[in-house]
């Protein structure tokens, strides 16, 4: 069976990043925006869009918190930080 360690590793890293950000950098609660807000970027489209931050935004927030280089990308330094044993309480939002 062919083995693709690089691909597996990338998949593992992607899962690590997503799990980590979901656990510790979930959407910050904002009492004025109950999870949804009006899409004002295009006034003709009076729809609703979720208030969720993108993975890049969450990564930037995480990198900023830990004093890492803010790239918005899961670089080696960021991945190393995510692998460290830690407290399960989120770093931003939800705590209070």
């Amino acid at each position, binding site marked *: 069976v062919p083995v693709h360690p690089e691909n597996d590793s990338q998949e593992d890293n992607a899962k690590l990043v997503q799990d980590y950000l979901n656990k510790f950098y979930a959407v910050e609660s904002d009492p004025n925006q109950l999870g949804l807000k009006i899409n004002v970027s295009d006034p003709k489209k009076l729809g609703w869009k979720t208030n969720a931050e993108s993975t890049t935004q969450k990564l930037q927030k995480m990198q900023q918190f830990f004093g890492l280089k803010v790239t918005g990308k899961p670089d080696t330094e960021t991945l190393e930080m995510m692998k460290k044993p830690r407290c*399960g309480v989120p770093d931003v939002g939800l705590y209070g």
Partner: protein
Amino acid sequence: VTLPGWKRNNLTYRIVNHTPDMSKKDVDKAVEKAFEVWSSVTPLVFSRIHEGIADIMIAFGTKAHGHCPRYFDGPLGILAHAFPPGIGFGGDVHFDEDEDWTAGSAGFNLFLVAAHEFGHALGLSHSNDQRALMFPNYAYVSLSEFPLSPDDISGIQSIYGSPSNAPDKRPPTPASPKACGSHMSFNAITTLRREVIFLKGRHLWRVYPDNLGVERELISTFWPTVSPGIEAAYENNKDQILFFKGNRFWVVSGYRVLLGYPKSINTLGFPKGVKKIDAAVCNKNTGKTDFFIGDKYWRFDENSQSMEKGYPRQTVKDFPGINQKVDAVFQQKGLFYFFHGSKQWEFDPTTKKVIREIKSNSWFNC
């Protein structure tokens, strides 16, 4: 922080179950010491209960545990979690039983993780200061070091204030004393390596004998957990300073206040009747420390860490010329300097004679 935190200063905790990784005694000790970390810098008092619902319920569990909305993830990863003050899960602390809990540096030190989680249970969120106990990642630090950083202390004190022992209560904005005032007196004086440190109220002055500079600082700048209004202090022969206030004392090494302090002065061998110490000095030549209390003094052997027999003795009998209660005393270049009110006496312990009487602030190049 999560305001307003707990609305009471007396909080209860219960250890619901113990980890099999450690002896029950070691778990209890780690938890108790972790609470002491926070009670030493706040007015909070923690008492353990063995049944019923406590403010802070402490439990070990794995994966999905009890009714807790947060899951654990097996070995490594998440070590523990806690909930901010409140009812229900509020204040509760859970440890992942899949981790290797220890009382030392191997695996994960329960005391350090518990102290971090109790910070959450009291209302602190994570700090991004890597030196802070509330930094989210685990890092082992020597257990002889006090684990709180200035960031942790300012965070917790912004919720609960500083320790509120009655003797510490003082006007909110006390005027800082002027070192060159003609009636200047001191509460305590100690050497610190080559420096001499004069203490009064919340302040200290650092005097460098070979230098004209004098620096005034708040005691809390260097040692945030040491109470203001120190009454006696001395440098021992282990490069440590002991600070005394009432019947409690702290030991500091550099900027670190050693863990487990303050302790009662009874642990030094003073009887229960001794409520405070006026002044103390360690004689560098003999390794004996004299504690001055009223018109008497006690002698402590630093090597054997025990009080010498035959004490207390009248101060004036062994230190002729020192007739008054001693406010503060220190030793420099073999001579003792005794302070009372705005005066000081230079005393030669070899000849047992007062050499001269001078103003208390002669060290300040006024």
